[in-house]
């Protein structure tokens, strides 16, 4: 038996190990890893398998309990597996089974091997402050099997001083047991590949009986295994992986390139900078290579290492900039590589379904965030959008909806940013409990979420359901919605919930779903709002008043969108009843909504305005009424001379103190108007005398040639799809158009 102590991700170890294995010609390879995954080893030889990939062990039904065993192409363990598969000899894992490891852990997901790196202690003993640099100098740059013996000896001395944790003892006992079993099976030349720390314990350990005692009665859970793609970003210790490496990209480079690693590395760094539009010429690369070599010579290192190339790149290529150095660090040193696993990998059905859809929709999982602008009029994009919405409902956050590069408010566009993370596989496995395809699983999850959700969350779910085209979940969701609406006593909740629901009904058109059912529920909701509104608007303080006003606006536009005549008239009736008996801000608002809807005549509106803003009304109340009435658009004042005259008369009659008191409210009102509106109001107001009387029409206004205006108005009316009253006067003609 030969034991090879390696560093878990070291390209030099990997290369030396491959050479050593070829020289040794073992008849079996044992590798530190979970033995339950023995059946998955063969997949490593599949041409579709691309490291980095990780073995994922999870307890079915308890998604939190899972562990990853990552492998990169430059991992010695990976090379050992590949060697064994190519040589046709068995390769098995010999670590303590994950069923015990996961049972011993307290249920939190974590990665394995989180012990202090023994290499760090060796490096410290050699006077290096940086373990990776020491390792690079003594191992990566000194190829050959001799290094395994030297490392093993050093570890032996370390272990004499500090025998290590109890957990290690158990794991090593199990490894010895596996080795004994392999011997009994008749294997003679066994190669064991494990962390350098374990080498002394595997070479000579206590007798089998002692190991059996140690291994007796360990807790156990059922564990399932699969391969999942892994990323270099997660391999870096920056993400908290105990035995990780800070620079997987650099190690990958060292392992893959045939020679001249420094030159090739700096050329790649220059290419990265050029990709960002920064001038990095071959002359720069030449100078950077020279500087890196000079630095290595100055420091007495055999070859420029990561520190030297990084410093050379910073001084020459990046001109001292931290920002650019950070870019190289992210893109090259760590790298953004995402592995791939072959189709034959055991997958939960949900994963398989997603993979099929990804292929069909040409959406590749990538580690680097990438933006997609989807045009929902195209079938493929629509399907992509549905898939992403379904995944979002399932809690698999592959895509984040974002503001796209194409600025568009149209309902047929959607922007997503997609970035695949290894944890998403775990989320998919968790999602398995809901169903076997993204569609059924998402629908089931939505219904379970709906069970306890408040009303506005329910309507948001309904909207999500439509976006994801989960018509199966819709009836249940709507039933829950109806029930919740019936029980909810707070009308503001209903009002908050309505817009999303109506929006959902509108989306139905673009997404070719049937909006009829939604419309029914929305209409029901409106009925309830109409009943509850009178109570809701009574006795409000100022902030609440403002809040209710914006909710009424939202509901009003939702009612308009729904295009259901019965609900619309019920809503307007309610508003009409309420307009006289509610706080001034809301009263003003309701009057305006009724006027716009044609429920009251301009004359009636003017009458109300006179009343509300007469001398008897409190100044603050009058200002509030005006704010509510005028909010949103000042066009009314431009076109209705009577109203403008009223407002002007009221303003002119205010005392200086009163004027100061209402100024904030006026500023809020007029400040929100568009600049041309303000200008037009100002121009008209300049002709008023402050008496509140309607001014004589300006000469210019009377100068209109109605005969010439009629065809234009007719064209506008046709575009808007409304009938034009034949022979109507200029004034009523514009009103028809303006109202619609």
């Amino acid at each position, binding site marked *: 038996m030969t034991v090879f102590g390696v560093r878990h991700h070291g390209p030099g170890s990997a290369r030396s190990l491959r050479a050593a294995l070829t020289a040794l010609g073992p008849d079996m390879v044992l590798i530190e890893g979970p033995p339950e995954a023995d059946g998955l080893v063969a997949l490593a030889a599949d041409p579709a398998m691309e490291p980095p990939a990780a073995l994922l062990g999870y307890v079915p039904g308890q998604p939190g309990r899972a562990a990853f065993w990552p492998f990169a192409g430059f991992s010695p363990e990976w090379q050992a597996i590949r060697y064994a598969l190519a040589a046709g000899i068995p390769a098995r894992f010999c670590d303590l089974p994950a069923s015990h490891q996961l049972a011993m852990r307290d249920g939190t997901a974590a990665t394995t091997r989180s012990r202090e790196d023994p290499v760090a202690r060796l490096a410290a003993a050699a006077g290096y402050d940086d373990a990776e640099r020491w390792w690079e100098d003594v191992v990566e740059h000194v190829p050959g099997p001799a290094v395994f013996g030297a490392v093993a000896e050093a570890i032996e001395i370390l272990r004499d001083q500090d025998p290590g944790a109890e957990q290690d003892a158990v794991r090593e006992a199990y490894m010895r047991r596996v080795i004994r079993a392999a011997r009994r099976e008749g294997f003679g030349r066994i190669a064991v590949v494990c962390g350098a720390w374990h080498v002394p314990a595997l070479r000579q350990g206590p007798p089998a009986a002692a190991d059996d005692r140690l291994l007796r009665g360990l807790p156990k859970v059922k564990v399932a295994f699969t391969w999942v793609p892994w990323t270099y970003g997660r391999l870096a210790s920056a993400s908290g992986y105990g035995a990780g490496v800070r620079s997987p990209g650099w190690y990958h480079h060292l392992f893959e390139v045939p020679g001249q690693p420094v030159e090739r590395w700096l050329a790649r760094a220059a290419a990265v900078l050029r990709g960002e539009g920064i*001038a990095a*010429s071959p*002359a*720069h690369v030449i*100078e950077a290579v*020279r*500087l890196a070599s*000079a*630095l290595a*010579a*100055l*420091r007495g290192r055999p070859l420029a290492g990561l*520190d030297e190339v990084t*410093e*050379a790149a*910073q*001084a*020459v290529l*990046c*001109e*001292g900039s*931290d920002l650019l150095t950070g870019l190289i660090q992210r893109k090259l040193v760590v790298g953004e590589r995402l592995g791939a696993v072959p189709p034959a990998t055991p997958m939960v059905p949900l994963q398989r379904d997603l993979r099929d859809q990804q292929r069909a929709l040409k959406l590749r999982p990538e580690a680097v965030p990438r933006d997609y602008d989807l045009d929902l009029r195209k079938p493929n994009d629509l399907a992509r959008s549905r898939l992403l919405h379904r995944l979002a409902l399932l809690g698999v956050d592959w895509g984040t909806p974002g503001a796209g590069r194409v600025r568009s408010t149209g309902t047929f566009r959607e922007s997503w940013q997609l970035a695949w993370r290894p944890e998403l596989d775990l989320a998919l496995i968790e999602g398995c409990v809901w169903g076997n395809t993204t569609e059924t699983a998402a629908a089931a999850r939505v219904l379970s979420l709906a069970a306890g959700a408040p009303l506005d969350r329910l309507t948001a779910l309904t909207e999500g359901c439509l976006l994801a085209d989960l018509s199966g979940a819709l009836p249940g969701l709507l039933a829950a919605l109806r029930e919740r609406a019936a029980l909810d006593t707070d009308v503001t909740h209903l009002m908050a919930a309505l817009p999303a629901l109506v929006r959902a009904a509108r989306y139905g058109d673009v997404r070719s779903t049937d909006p009829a059912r939604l419309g029914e529920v929305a209409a029901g909701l409106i009925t309830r709002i109409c009943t509850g509104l009178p109570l809701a608007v009574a006795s409000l303080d100022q902030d609440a008043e403002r809040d209710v006003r914006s909710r009424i606006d939202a509901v009003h536009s939702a009612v308009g969108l729904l295009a259901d005549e019965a609900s619309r008239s019920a809503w307007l009736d309610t508003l009409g009843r309420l307009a006289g008996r509610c706080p001034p801000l809301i009263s003003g608002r309701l009057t305006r909504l009724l006027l716009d809807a044609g429920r009251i005549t301009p004359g009636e509106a003017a009458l109300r305005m006179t009343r509300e803003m007469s001398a008897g009304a409190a100044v603050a109340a009058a200002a509030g009424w005006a704010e509510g009435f005028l909010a949103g658009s000042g066009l009314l004042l431009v076109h209705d001379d009577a109203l403008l005259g009223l407002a002007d008369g009221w303003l002119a009659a205010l005392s200086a103190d009163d004027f100061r008191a209402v100024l904030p409210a006026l500023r809020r009102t007029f400040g929100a108007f568009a600049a041309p509106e303000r200008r037009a109001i100002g121009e008209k107001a300049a002709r008023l005398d402050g008496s509140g009387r309607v001014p004589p029409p300006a000469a210019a206004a009377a100068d209109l040639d109605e005969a010439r205006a009629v065809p234009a108005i007719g064209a506008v009316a046709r575009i808007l799809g409304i009938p034009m009253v034949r022979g109507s006067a200029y004034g009523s003609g514009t009103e028809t158009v303006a109202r619609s």
Partner: protein
Amino acid sequence: MTAEAIAALRPHAEAEHAAELAALAAGDTRPRPPGWRLSPWAVTTYVLGGTAAGGTVITPKYVGSRRLVEVAVATLATDRALLLLGVPGTAKTWLSEHLAAAISGDSTLLVQGTAGTAEEAVRYGWNYARLIAEGPSRDALVPGPVMRAMASGQIARVEELTRMPSDVQDALITILSEKTLPIPELGSELQAVRGFNLIATANDRDRGVNELSSALRRRFNTVVLPVPASADEEVDIVTRRVAQLGRSIGLPEMPDGAGEIRRVVTVFRELREGVTEDGRARVKSPSGTLSAAEAISVVTSGLALAAHFGDGVLRAADVAGGITGAVVQDPVSDQVVWQEYLEAVVREREGWGDFYHACREAAG
């Protein structure tokens, strides 16, 4: 030379540390790049401190990252010009002087970059009497510092490179890329002798500077000198420099002023970083840079006050005036920042009562 150096107010680095340089040169067995007095290893040791082969203790000249110094030395060894960047007071000039002293034994080949620096300073001028009498000749030519460095194979220094007008800066391009200086008037050129190189410093905070052209920029390797990483490091720098300055201006030896020095450094660091050392409170930052160099001058003037007018011990009152002047650069806005800092941070701090009162008094 030595007598002269002792008499000088501020001796050149190569004179002040002549003994250290000689000891390093004597024990230096490593290969030296052509034209260098010391090997790169010895230069690094000279700058960062250590022990020479004969047992001579080398004092550290630059306190900071070893890596940065190594990159700087390696740059010069590879024949590339070195650009030291940093905010004021990060020892750019200091480092360039010592590098030049260690490498060529001469730190005096210096061009000070100002808005008025003319091309003659970078290249050459003429002895006009001779030019008129004899016509253009090599003898009538007055070489500038860079040209002299080229001729003798030494290090030339350019201070505040970005303050020079752009056309003068660009005169360096040929020198750095071709390593020759054409003299069209004589129809000849001067080729640099091996060992010639150039160290430039530039301030990356200044406004209104002349940005380097990309053609020039890419002839330089850039090293950015940071502000001291930790309070201890900064205290160390200030203490060391103050002791050196004190000797050169003949101040009597002082009992330990470390407490007061730490206080000055703490105030400077907190104001510079905008947060107190314990990370509990935010403070506003004044407009000045508050570098280690300014802390050094505050402490030195405090020492002078204590020696000549006080009781010979550095006390809070001695540094209060200096520190107020250093922080309050803008009489309006910085005054507010300083008052706020005094009231909100200094007043509450245990054992800082004397400092608080001294500063209040100094502020008037």
